[in-house]
């Protein structure tokens, strides 16, 4: 799993490359949380264009970040999820709290 975090004028982007599961979720969570603590975030985008696999561990990670960012009033968006990841996100109801963008 490779994670790239960028912030351009308040638009924070987390780009995940690889497979998101129990084996790497702790590191992903910690890095994103440290990045959030860095502040100056107006909106948060998860870029899943390079994410080839995700299971329910990933859903738990997203829900956790949602709780954190909601307290800061920061909206979350999900971009470019592949067919499989997109289906899991829909099944878990993630798109009701994070808007899909292309």
């Amino acid at each position, binding site marked *: 799993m490779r994670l790239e975090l960028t912030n351009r004028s308040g638009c924070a982007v987390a780009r995940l490359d690889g497979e998101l599961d129990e084996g790497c979720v702790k590191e992903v969570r910690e890095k994103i949380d440290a990045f959030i603590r860095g502040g100056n975030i107006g909106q948060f985008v998860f870029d899943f264009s390079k994410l080839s696999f995700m299971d329910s561990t990933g859903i738990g990670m997203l829900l*956790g970040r949602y709780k954190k960012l909601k307290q800061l009033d920061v909206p979350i968006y999900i971009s470019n999820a592949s067919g499989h990841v997109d289906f899991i996100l829909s099944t878990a109801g993630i798109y009701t709290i994070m808007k899909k963008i292309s």
Partner: protein
Amino acid sequence: MNKFSMKLLAKTGNESFARSCVSAFCLEANPTLEEINDIKTAVSEAVTNCIVHAYSGKDDKFIDISVSLEGQKAEIIIEDYGCGIEDVDKAMQPFFTTKPDQERSGMGFTLIQTFMNDVKIISQKDKGTKVVMQKEFKKD
């Protein structure tokens, strides 16, 4: 008919190896890419359950994984010898989790049921849990 079985340490990081092995073995039945992802997800969920719940992170315990292929049908069994599930029906409900503090979504069994044709969970408290999953691959 073909069979495969393996014993794997319940160690974080082994989920990826388990799902890759099982899905690779199923290639013989010519699954679609979507069906491979279904298998990968179900195996990942079941193995993660063994690591996180059954053995609570004790990584010197084993998970038994076996796959039987018969024509277009695969039966995948994932078994642990950990704490067992007290109430299987409850555990299978969407969003139910015993570890909400660890950011667990409670969606594991729901996803297994979504992706597999049939799922049976046999569990005994303090003895362990056996997840038996069936998948029928579409014919070309």
